[in-house]
């Protein structure tokens, strides 16, 4: 079995396992390449159906093209979309100028936490990958969160063979990471193989710039690239020495920025 098929089959197994074992399950959709692949795998797992709601946490600072693309796909694939916002923080003017980590925590982590509470989700499926950044590499596929949505990185449940943690104390919920073992290159090769539609922001524009990772406009920057097709992107990634999240400003704030964010409930 080739690598992409093996990864695909593992992810399908994880998706089906979480759907069966977790009540009130939702999928976080950030509109980026990873969560779009995740959506594709979901349709494979459930024979064309997407039997769970998609949650998009809107910071209101997203690159405008992302929202247009999101709404288009919701119509085309007949998806159920739940948009979450931290209304209180937005109302009192939260933005990145107050500190990127402060802003991420308020608009993303808190926004997500409020949405989970509001809808009573018992589990969330996320498209994070272990190779994106060190603390994500330490994650479990089924990763429990306490009532405050906190991640206890120092004491995670054992996870071995095909068995995952599916029993929780009341109030705890679980994050499921079906793409944890995929690399950035695996994602693009899979997009090529399956011909999955992705947003144009990933391809080089007339200035010779493209996004490798998508986020909020003020904190996400494109990188120089001439890649205009999925195949070009694959060729670029095969030789690049630049990290994927180099265009994500919040990562650069502190040596352990992502871990600090994630312990508090960041994706």
């Amino acid at each position, binding site marked *: 079995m080739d*690598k992409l098929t093996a990864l695909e089959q593992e992810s399908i197994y994880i998706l089906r396992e979480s759907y069966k074992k977790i009540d009130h399950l939702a999928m976080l959709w950030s509109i980026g390449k990873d969560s779009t692949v995740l959506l594709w795998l979901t349709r494979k797992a459930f*024979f064309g159906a997407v039997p769970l709601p998609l949650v998009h946490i809107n910071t209101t600072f997203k690159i405008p093209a992302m929202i247009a693309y999101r709404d288009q796909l919701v119509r085309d694939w007949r998806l159920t979309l739940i948009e979450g916002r931290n209304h209180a923080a937005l109302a009192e003017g939260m933005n990145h100028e107050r500190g990127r980590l402060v802003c991420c925590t308020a608009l993303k982590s808190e926004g997500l936490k409020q949405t989970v509470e509001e809808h009573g989700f018992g589990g969330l499926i996320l498209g994070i990958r272990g190779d994106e950044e060190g603390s994500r590499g330490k994650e479990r596929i089924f990763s429990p969160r306490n009532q405050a949505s906190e991640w206890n990185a120092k004491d995670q449940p054992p996870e071995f063979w095909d068995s995952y943690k599916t029993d929780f104390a009341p109030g705890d919920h679980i994050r499921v990471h079906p793409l944890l073992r995929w690399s950035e290159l695996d994602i693009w090769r899979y997009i090529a193989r399956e011909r999955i539609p992705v947003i144009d922001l990933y391809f080089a524009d007339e200035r010779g710039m493209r996004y490798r990772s998508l986020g909020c406009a003020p904190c996400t920057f494109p990188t120089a690239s001439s890649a205009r097709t999925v195949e070009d992107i694959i060729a670029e990634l095969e030789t690049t020495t630049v990290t994927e999240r180099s265009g994500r400003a919040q990562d650069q704030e502190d040596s352990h920025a992502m871990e600090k964010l994630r312990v508090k409930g960041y994706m």
Partner: protein
Amino acid sequence: MNSPAPASGLASQALAASEPAMPLHLVIVGHVDHGKSSLIGRILYDTQSVEPSRVEKIRRICEEQHKPFELAFLLDALEEEQLQGITIDTTQIRFHTPARDFVIIDAPGHKEFLKNMISGAAKADAAVLIIDAREGVREQSRRHGYLLSLLGVRNIVVVINKMDLVDFDQAAFERVRDEYLAFLSEIGVEPLQVIPLSAFTGDNVTTRSAKMPWYEGESFLGSLERFASPEKQAVDTLRMTVQDVYKFDDRRIVAGRIHSGALAVGDTIQALPSGHQATVLSIETWPSPETPITRVEAGYNAGITLDYQLFLDRGHVLTHPGQGPEPTRYVAANVFWMAPRPLTLGQRVKLKIGAQEAVATVHQIKRVMNSSTMELLPGADGVPRNDVGEVVFRAEQPMVADVYGAFTHTARLVIVDGYDVCGGGIVLATGLKGLNAARGNVQRSEREGANGHRAALIAFDSDASHPRERDSLMRQLERALFDAGLRVSVASAAPGQTQASAGVIAALLEAGQAVLVAKGAFPDDLSPDLTASALSVDLRAHEAALPLAPQLAQASKRLKDALQLSDAASDARRGDLGASLF
């Protein structure tokens, strides 16, 4: 935006030449501070597998913490890990040589984090056991070696690290090597290679070192490239575990993973434990392929429809008729335990075997071992944290389990206590027959020798019209046999129940006893061949020509003869009677 086009859901076609093969997953384990993370850092650095910006970030963190540059931080990404200079949890990182792609799994060495080491190691195709040349074999070197064999990781290379600190001395290397090989052979592990190296200086890591001319083998990386690829399933007998059943439209799709063998449209399949049969009508995929898929094989998640809506649910195991294991409530396993409180006799837990889940009781603890020294812990009434034991579980409903070996997925169990995954194990035996065959500290044959006769199940029948009268006759026979020098017990139904406990019967047989059971009280969950091989005694107390006493004497003599140990005739009989008992 490019548009989606149908793609095949099941790559049952040949693999395209451009598709990358699955990388080799390699776990690095060993005692704390023997150099696991440093070796990984060295490989990544020497194969240029890390982006410069990541190295820069590590450099910055080391400066912030006033520490010398530490490549291990590439893996030990958690702040706590870097502050303390330890590995708390497992992580994975990729690297490749021109010959091959790898994923390295770093696993912690501290005993406190054993559950994390197990979480990492269980994903590996191959393992590297690392030992410090100065310190030699330590507690976790041995424990990790043993756990790898329990987890099913068979390809193993041993590296003796920090050779620079023993002046690249051959004798120092051989001392440690011989000590470790001796231990590994005790637990049946045979490493493919033992390599002296220094992760710190890079000697023998990616290329052969001139400082150890006495070593004739390959460099560490060279030996990794030669590791066999992940093995395919050794058997082609079908095992598909049902994960869920979907009804999103007019189709009723049974979804599950095929662990071994293959399934084709038109096949008759059998669902265990129920035994119901049905025919496969279709294999469903999305997006719909141009030509329907007619076969699906091991490694794939299948979705099938059936001609008969048999009551299938999550946890059922699909096989071809007659090719599945006998469903059983008794499962004996080699168990590793990770919870703070020991696993004790009588404890109620949840057993998971693939998608099956059942409440089970710890029915017997055959032996408990220190997982590092392999010493038996005599008199232990539980399996302590981080140790291992042979445990028999009695599930509250029949389970479908294979014995570990040719089958793996249906032969592994996970133990959940409360909300937590606390242990795992591999199945040694199933059913009462298997339990008796499973190794214990004292063999049943030894107990039989001490008792002076064979153990046997005896089905007692009489024409007594009332069960109480029949039981009274059986008790009299018990007395007669006991007076004749036999270790004998009656297994009767508990008050309010009609059947004797299969567990009690099994335990008594295991103790080398003759066990009397009234024919009407035979438990349903007793293995069929045990039932079939039972000796039978029929007392016709009320119509027989003989009065009761001579009848009892005759019956007990007959039984005693049948249970003789040394008599050649009974040995021959033992062959046919005892096949299922021993």
